């Protein structure tokens, strides 16, 4: 269930790399204009391109419809970054195609007919783009895309036309968060056509000091150019986070050490944990491991917990419907057990 996160590379500042391509089918109105029948036709059509044997070793893929999933199951997929909230707000008309280890998710009838997403642990934007391009070519082999020589791939929102590419890197930036530097980074990024957002994208808060850096401009630059500038910018942010950690360590070494040990203390012994508290403490522990201060906890355990403690994914780990307090109790128990 938490594949991607258990495979994640330790406690690195860079958590995952993600590529998303927006594509639409030629001469068919965009999803928000379609009724259920038409929407289902599109789901069948897109899934049809990926269900054959002719996939050159990519796949197999399976289709996920939301009608037969509970609300906790749906939201857990959002928490695992497989799908967007917007996709399930339109559950009767949408679907997603997943591969076995869940690093590919092809959302159908979200804002666009097709939103092809490839996610990889670590700093692997180029690899993820190549993989996404292969899948894109397979789909395009059987489906005519809405494409214009001047404007490129046409999308429902003009902010995505051109490459339809949104490349993003998920970063863990606790020291920059503590030193309140993220706002400054945001301003600088805006000037170069990029943005930094909270863990669940647009408008979300940055629980756990986890942020996403992504490109904003999709037209006028090639995919390679977009990725290269993102790589350059992310590398700089990583350097800044490292520098901020060093400053923190030099100036407030004892306080920092105390903070980090208190965090692990609470996580190990608390009987009730809200998701907000758990995420913030886990963030501290993750940084502590990376800085070599906390030595007796495995980074994989922390990464997995970051996903497991979130409300919907937590609900799935219980047989009965939980109240808020019930969830806090279960969350504390799961964290205690793991640590």
């Amino acid at each position, binding site marked *: 269930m938490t594949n991607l996160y258990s495979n994640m590379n330790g406690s690195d500042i860079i958590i995952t790399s993600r590529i998303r391509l927006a594509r*639409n089918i*030629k*001469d*068919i*109105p*965009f999803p*928000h*204009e379609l009724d259920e029948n038409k929407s289902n036709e599109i789901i069948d059509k897109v899934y049809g391109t990926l269900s054959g044997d002719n996939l050159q070793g990519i796949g197999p893929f399976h289709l996920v419809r939301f009608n037969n999933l509970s609300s906790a199951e749906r939201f857990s997929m959002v928490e695992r970054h497989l799908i967007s909230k917007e996709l399930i707000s339109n559950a009767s008309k949408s679907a997603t195609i997943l591969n076995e280890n869940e690093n590919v998710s092809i959302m159908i009838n979200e*804002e666009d007919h097709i939103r092809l997403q490839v996610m990889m642990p670590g700093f692997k934007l180029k690899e993820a783009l190549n993989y996404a*391009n292969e899948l*894109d*070519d397979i789909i*395009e*082999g059987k489906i*005519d*895309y*809405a*494409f*214009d*020589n*001047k*404007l*490129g*791939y*046409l999308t*429902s*929102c*003009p*902010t995505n*036309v*051109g*490459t339809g*590419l949104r490349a993003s890197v998920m970063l863990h930036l606790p020291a920059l968060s503590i030193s309140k530097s993220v706002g400054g980074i945001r301003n600088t990024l805006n000037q170069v*056509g990029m943005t930094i957002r909270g863990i669940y994208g647009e*408008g979300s808060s940055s629980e756990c000091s986890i942020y996403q850096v992504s490109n904003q*401009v*999709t*037209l*006028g*630059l*090639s*995919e390679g150019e*977009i990725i290269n500038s993102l790589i350059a910018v992310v590398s700089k942010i990583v350097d800044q986070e490292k520098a901020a950690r060093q400053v923190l360590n030099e100036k407030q070494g004892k306080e920092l050490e105390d903070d980090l040990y208190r965090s692990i203390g609470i996580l190990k012994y608390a009987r009730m944990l809200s998701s907000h508290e758990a995420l913030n403490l886990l963030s501290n522990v993750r940084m502590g491991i990376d800085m070599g201060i906390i030595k007796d906890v495995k980074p994989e355990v922390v990464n997995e917990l970051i996903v497991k403690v979130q409300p919907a994914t937590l609900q799935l780990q219980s047989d009965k419907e939980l109240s808020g307090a019930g969830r806090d109790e279960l969350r504390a128990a799961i964290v205690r057990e793991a640590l």
Partner: protein
Amino acid sequence: MLCQNCNKKEATVHITKIINGVKTEMHLCEDCARENQEVNLSQPFGIGIPFSFQNILDGLFEVSGLENEEANDEIRCPVCNMSMEDFRRTGRVGCGNCYETFKNEMIPLVKRIHGGVQHTGKVPKRTGGLLKVRRDIDKLKEELKTSIDNEEYEKAAEIRDKIKELEKDANNENNKGEGEK
């Protein structure tokens, strides 16, 4: 200065709007500003009102000088029946053809968003065949120019041959496309 809405708290949010040359001013306290729909621009000041794409659309239309072209609201897209009015309300176009139907409005808007209007990225393999070849030719022509400037004539000759070959391909492709029609 007191808030002009509640007249109780100190006004900390000051808004000056200039629409068609008419200037209006508002002075609100933080609470009233939060309630006020018109003050959506306040996110940069840290009040945290969601600031969506639709909110800025009208602003972009204003600077493009398109806000008064009411006649265009009569036009509807032949494929999805969307009007410009619908787009301004939802921030989304109805289908790919809308970009062509409303190109007078959409092209300046896209330019404002992205800074340019020429796609230079990936081209669909199957349906974008001709464009793909043309793009390759353009690239080679640039390389040809550089190698002539650098007096690398042997390399230039190689590139010239490549261009010839691609142009032949492009012509074939072109004829094939017309033949199908």
